C-alpha cells in the first residue's frame, strides 16, 4: 500500500470530535454540580441584618457566584483528568502524535468551558425562578436587571475566560503530575510555604498578588488579554511537557 499523506489539522479535528463524544459524560457531572450549587445558593450567598426600634430587617443576597465557583472546580477536575494515562493512551490506538493529542484536548476543554460558563451564568435565572415561585423571595430589583444585555455578555465572556484559564492550569498541573507524582505534593507545599514566608515578613502574600492580578482587573479588555495570554502560556507549557512522555510503557 502506498503511504498516505497526513493533514495535521484534519487529525486534530477528528480527534476533537471523538473526544467530545468519548468525554460527554463530563457534561452530566456539570449539570448535577450546577444543580447542587443552585440548591446551596437558595439560602442566599450572603446576608445582612439590621435591628432597631422593634424591627428587624434582613437582606439576603442571591447570585450565581456559587454556581460559577463550582463550575470552575469542575473545569479544573476535567482538565486534570484528561492528562492521566488512560486518557492519553486512547489516542494511540488510532492516529495521533502528542501535539495533536494535546491540541484536540485543548479544543475539547474550550468547548467544555463555553458550555460550563454559559450555563453557569444562566443558572441565575433558575435560581430566581425557584426562589420567587417556591421560596417566596421578596424581590428588590434595581441594581441588577439579570438580563441587561451588556451585563449578560460581559458576564458570559468573563466567566468562560475564567473557566478556560482554570482548565489550562489544571491541564498544566496534570501534565506535571505525569512527570512525577512528586509535583502533586510540591505545588501545594510551595504555595503554603510562600504564603507563610510572606506572612512572617509582613509582606502581602504572593498568592494574593497573583490572584488580584486577575480578579481585580477592572478593565475588561485588559482582563481578556491577561487571561488569554496566561491560558496560552499554560497550555503551551503543558504541550511541551507531554510531548516527551512515553505511552503504553
Amino acid at each position: 500500500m502506498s503511504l498516505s499523506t497526513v493533514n495535521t489539522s484534519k487529525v486534530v479535528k477528528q480527534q476533537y470530535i471523538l473526544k467530545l463524544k468519548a468525554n460527554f459524560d463530563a457534561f452530566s457531572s456539570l449539570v448535577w454540580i450546577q444543580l447542587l450549587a443552585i440548591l446551596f445558593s437558595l439560602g442566599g450567598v450572603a446576608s445582612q441584618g439590621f435591628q432597631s426600634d422593634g424591627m428587624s430587617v434582613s437582606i439576603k443576597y442571591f447570585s450565581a457566584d456559587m454556581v460559577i465557583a463550582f463550575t470552575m472546580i469542575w473545569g479544573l477536575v476535567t482538565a486534570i483528568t484528561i492528562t492521566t494515562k488512560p486518557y492519553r493512551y486512547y489516542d494511540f490506538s488510532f492516529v495521533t502524535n502528542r501535539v495533536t493529542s494535546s491540541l484536540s484536548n485543548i479544543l475539547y476543554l474550550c468547548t467544555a468551558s463555553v458550555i460550563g460558563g454559559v450555563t453557569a451564568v444562566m443558572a441565575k435565572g433558575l435560581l430566581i425562578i425557584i426562589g420567587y415561585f417556591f421560596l417566596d423571595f421578596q424581590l428588590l430589583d434595581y441594581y441588577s436587571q439579570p438580563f441587561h444585555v451588556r451585563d449578560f455578555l460581559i458576564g458570559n465572556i468573563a466567566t468562560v475566560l475564567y473557566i478556560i484559564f482554570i482548565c489550562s492550569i489544571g491541564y498544566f498541573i496534570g501534565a506535571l503530575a505525569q512527570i512525577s507524582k512528586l509535583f502533586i505534593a510540591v505545588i501545594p507545599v510551595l504555595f503554603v510555604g510562600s504564603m507563610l514566608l510572606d506572612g512572617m515578613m509582613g509582606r502581602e502574600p504572593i498568592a494574593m498578588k497573583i490572584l488580584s492580578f486577575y480578579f481585580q482587573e477592572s478593565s475588561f479588555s485588559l482582563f481578556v488579554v491577561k487571561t488569554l495570554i496566561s491560558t496560552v502560556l499554560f497550555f503551551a507549557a503543558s504541550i511541551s511537557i507531554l510531548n516527551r512522555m512515553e505511552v503504553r510503557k
Partner: protein
Amino acid sequence: MKVIECSNLTKSYLRKKVLNQLTFSIEENTITGLIGKNGVGKTTLLKILAGYIKQTSGEINVFSEKPFNSLLVSANTIFVDDQMSFPSPLQLHEILQAAGSLYPNWDMTFANRLFHYFSFDPKHYHNRLSKGKTSTFNAIIGLASRAPLTIFDEPTTGMDAAARRDFYRALLKDYLTYPRTIIISSHHLEELENLLEDVLLIKDGNNHLHLPIEELKEQAIGLKGAEETILNWTKDREVYYKNQIGTNTLYAVVRNEFSEQELQLAKENEIEITSVSPSDLCVYLTGETKRGIDDVFIDR
C-alpha cells in the same frame, strides 16, 4: 524500499539493557514473524517502532522518519495487542467509526463483515469483552485499517483454535489482495509457518537471526541414534540442541551443512534424520542452556 531501518538500537530500563545494539531492516510488503523468548524485548521493539516509547540510543527509521511523534508514521501504522484501549463510553460500533475517521485506508465494509462474522454486538462495550473476544476485535481493527505497516503483538492471546485459524486465514487473504508490511510477534510460530515470509529472531536483545522462513526450514537437521555415533557425527558441528532419549539414544539438532553423500552415510550408520521445524529450531536457538525441563526433575 526499506520500511523499517534499525541500527544499533539500544533500550535500557534503569540498568538493564532490554535491546542491545539491535540492527535489522524490513522490506516493504513482507510478513515478518518476530520471535523470541518471553521478556527478550519483542514488545519493547514493537513499541519503539510504533512511536510509543523512545530508544535509549541508536537509530530507528520507519518510513524514513523517526517514529516518535511522527504523524506520518502514526497514520500509516497500526499497533495491535491485547492492551489496546478505547474510551470506555464508546460502544463497539462507535470504535469502528472512530477508527474509520482517523485511518486513511480504513475499509468499513470489510470491518463490518468481519465484525458480524465473529458475532459481535455493536452496542457492547470494549472493556466488557472476554479475553478472546478482545483479541479478535482488536485484530479486526488491525486488519480493516489496511495500514501500510501493521504490527501484531501476540494477536491471538485468548483466542480459541477456530478463531485463530480464521484470523490467520483472513490476514493472509487480505494481505494477498492488499499487500502491506506486516510484523507479527507470536509464540505460536508453528501456526504461523504457512503465513510468514521472514523470521526475525531476537536473543539477548540482539538480532540473532533474520532469514526467510524457507531458509529457516532447511537451517537445521535432527539426528537421532546411538549416543556414541551421534556424538561422533556432531563433533565439529554447530549443535543447537541435545537430548537423551532412553538409555543409549541421543537426539541432536545440528546445523545443516551436510551434503547428500554425508546424509546417505548417516542413514547407513543407523542415524535417523528428521527435519526441524522453524518453530522447534527457534526454541532451541533461544534456549538458555542446551538442556531441558527434565533436568529439574533429575534428582527427585
